[in-house]
């Protein structure tokens, strides 16, 4: 087929180029290559922000069109039509219909999958009828050709009345032509693809007049979707409500007949455009692969093997860069402490830098996890996972798509909760967000490791099954069970706002585009550092103050007491310092709070020392090990076995070892279930747009942790 790459051949009217930065919106069906096209056009010049009023990420990027001209590209969520069915899709209409918004695009690029042109054109014809200047980027022409589908670009262009540019979003073919078109001031297509029935004029005309809309089709959309348009005032909504009732407007019936009319029109215009050469197609490669990958037995086996690989990678591969970050932060801190002195230096090293380290340490795990998720999504395998798991997950009030957040939750709840956005249904999404933090995340590992080492003997069964490993796995399984049973509880409690759908395109298998994978990793890590980082650092500083200061001269007295005791016991200089730190922590505000909450946590087997650790763990649970080290005056740079020995020698009032299995298991259960992560609360607040959800999570999880830890302690002691 003739591939048009010269913009000169394009038919749209051209006016003099503008000098200001043009706003270009990218819109298209899911799986039509929209994200790849966005990455091709903008490269690393991307920014993730929020759409005004809604908390779904808005990706924008700058594209250099010519040496002198730039365009701002807005990547809109994938959608099948302008009648949105999900939160993500609603963004599109809120952006396009708000006539007063500064985000109104000057041009939309509609991406269309050439191998599935009919369905892809539905969205295009809706946009064209809104009279928004548009360009059709015809993607995957090569795939279509392989399937024997030939598209006549010239005829398509004539039929649609807008430029059609064949592109290959994977290789970058057609980008130059697309950029040239963006420099032109384009007119909207003169074609209309749907004639609004005259009977609706009594509804449309008053709406068009009241909101000063540029055309009737836009007014029709206001009539259908006024309840989803965030920028309308309550008075406006009430007004439309009254008008529609008065006129007896049936939204469902009208939408259905519109869609049917559009498809009829599209079928007609495609008659001259698309030629299918191989009528009798060989069974597609994807279908054959599916026979194995979604097989009754092999399907699940392969899925669990992949899961196992992901776990391994997250825990082992990521541990090397994590150790490096850990050591780097530690040596930076000691370098500063050696050369400078004073309370501000301590604030910097133990508050700010330590807090920053607590953020940076998660980057390798987030990167590895999202590398896998991106590859699995890019290849189309993730769609098969949701397909295989949907029936099971639905029983627990979840959705096949909840699998991704739940699995990601094992690395870190923050990106996991962000990934719940693909779930269209409000109730399913809320339940997924609510229970994801119950999955044992990587921040719990250090806590589990220390406590398991303390009370579980290192025994092997059959030569390779390590008892400690089994206990660790047991904790993960318990966390998972807590998550799905909490989901079941919520399923009963929550009222559904909308129906749950599973109607989605089953994508064909593809090779991953590594550029997209790389950009996903980069973007997720950046979002985590910026979003969660702020809160973690802030809370770390507050906790540092609480742990570093006490009322009056209590710190000096603690130091004196420590020095006396040290002399009596003949301690070395390092041991003396550790003892001072320990006694000072007891006298600090954190220590005082620890004493205050002791009565409340005594039923769980904890004393005020663990109380301090619980308090400092509030921001981030991994702080537990560091705090425990300080309280028991172990010193910061000791390893697990030193901490273990020290804790083992800790005695209770009657002289028996303090860390009994009952206490240790009670603590493990508490850390497994409690909401001790400020970052997660912050991200839940951001994703749900309310404080109700994070607060409910805090109360529910911590309450559950308290009850279960109590039961555990009573059983084991």
């Amino acid at each position: 087929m003739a591939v048009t790459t010269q913009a000169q051949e394009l038919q749209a009217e051209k006016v003099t180029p503008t000098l200001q930065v043009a706003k270009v919106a990218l819109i298209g069906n899911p799986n039509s290559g929209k994200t790849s096209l966005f990455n091709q056009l903008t490269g690393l010049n991307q920014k993730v922000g929020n759409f005004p009023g809604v908390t779904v990420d808005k990706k924008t990027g700058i594209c250099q069109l010519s040496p002198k001209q730039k365009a701002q590209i807005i990547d809109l969520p994938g959608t099948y039509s302008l009648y949105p069915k999900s939160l993500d899709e609603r963004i599109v209409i809120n952006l396009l219909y708000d006539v007063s918004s500064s985000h109104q695009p000057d041009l939309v690029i509609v991406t269309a999958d050439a191998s599935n042109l009919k369905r892809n054109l539905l969205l295009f014809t809706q946009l064209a009828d809104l009279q928004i200047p548009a360009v059709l980027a015809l993607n995957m022409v090569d795939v279509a050709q392989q399937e024997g589908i030939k598209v006549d670009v010239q005829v398509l262009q004539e039929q649609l009345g807008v430029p059609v540019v064949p592109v290959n979003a994977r290789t970058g073919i057609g980008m130059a032509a697309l950029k040239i078109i963006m420099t032109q001031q384009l007119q909207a297509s003169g074609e209309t693809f749907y004639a609004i029935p005259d009977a609706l004029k009594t509804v449309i005309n008053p709406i068009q007049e009241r909101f000063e809309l540029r055309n009737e089709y836009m007014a029709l959309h206001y009539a259908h979707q006024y309840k989803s348009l965030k920028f309308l005032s309550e008075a406006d909504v009430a007004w439309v409500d009254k008008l529609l009732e008065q006129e007896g407007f049936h939204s469902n019936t009208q939408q259905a007949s519109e869609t049917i009319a559009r498809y009829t029109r599209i079928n007609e215009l495609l008659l001259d455009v698309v030629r299918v050469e191989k009528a009798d197609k060989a069974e597609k490669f994807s279908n054959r692969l599916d026979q194995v990958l979604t097989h009754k037995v092999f399907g699940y086996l392969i899925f669990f093997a992949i899961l196992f690989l992901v776990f391994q990678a997250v825990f082992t591969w990521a541990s090397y860069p994590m150790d490096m970050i850990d050591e780097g932060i530690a040596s930076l801190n000691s370098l500063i402490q050696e050369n400078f002195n004073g309370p501000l230096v301590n604030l910097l090293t133990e508050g700010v830098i330590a807090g920053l380290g607590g953020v940076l340490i998660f980057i390798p795990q987030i990167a590895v996890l999202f590398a896998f998720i991106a590859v699995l999504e890019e290849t189309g395998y993730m769609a098969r996972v949701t397909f295989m798991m949907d029936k099971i997950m639905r029983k627990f009030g979840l959705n096949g798509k909840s699998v991704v957040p739940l699995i990601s939750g094992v690395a870190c709840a923050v990106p996991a909760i962000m990934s719940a956005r693909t779930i269209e249904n409000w109730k399913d999404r809320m339940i997924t967000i609510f229970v994801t933090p119950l999955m044992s995340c990587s921040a719990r590992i250090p806590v589990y490791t220390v406590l398991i080492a303390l009370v579980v003997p290192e025994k092997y069964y059959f030569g390779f099954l390590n008892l400690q490993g089994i206990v660790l796995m047991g904790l993960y399984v318990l966390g998972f069970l807590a998550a799905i049973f909490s989901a079941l509880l919520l399923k009963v409690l929550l009222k559904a706002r909308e129906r749950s759908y599973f109607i989605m395109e089953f994508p064909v298998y593809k090779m991953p585009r590594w550029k997209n994978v790389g950009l996903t990793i980069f973007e997720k890590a950046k979002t985590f550092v910026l979003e969660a980082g702020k809160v973690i650092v802030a809370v770390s500083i507050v906790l540092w103050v609480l742990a570093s200061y006490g009322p009056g001269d209590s710190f000096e007295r603690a130091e004196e007491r420590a020095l006396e005791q040290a002399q009596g016991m003949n301690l070395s200089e390092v041991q003396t310092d550790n003892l001072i730190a320990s006694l000072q922590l007891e006298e600090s505000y954190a220590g005082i709070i620890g004493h205050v909450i002791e009565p409340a946590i005594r039923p769980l087997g904890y004393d005020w020392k663990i109380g301090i650790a619980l308090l400092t763990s509030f921001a981030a649970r991994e702080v537990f090990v560091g705090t425990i080290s300080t309280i028991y005056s172990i010193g910061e740079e000791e390893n697990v076995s030193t901490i273990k020995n020290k804790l083992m020698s800790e005695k209770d009032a009657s002289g028996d070892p303090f860390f009994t299995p009952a206490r240790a298991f009670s603590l493990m259960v508490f850390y497994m279930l409690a909401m001790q992560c400020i970052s997660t609360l912050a991200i839940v607040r951001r994703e749900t747009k309310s404080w109700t959800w994070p607060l409910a999570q805090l109360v529910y999880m911590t309450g559950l942790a308290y009850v279960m830890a109590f039961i555990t302690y009573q059983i084991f002691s």
Partner: protein
Amino acid sequence: MAQHKAQKQQAQKTVCDLKIGESGEIIGLKDPEMALKLLEMGCLPGTSVKLNSKAPLGDPITIIVNDYTLSLRLDEAETILLKEN
């Protein structure tokens, strides 16, 4: 049970009644709200639909419509009415 099955046979044929690899022609959509989504995805009256595969647990299923694969749950597939042969 047998009676129930017989009753089902009497009722309108839907995509759920297809066997894997079998095709049918859509004549209508039962659920007005679900219909909007299905229509957008190209499940129009008159279109041919083929049951492609079932998930290991029997639900959801995939169908081929307009030359692409669509996945949906059984209770969604049940709303797609087919022509009796």
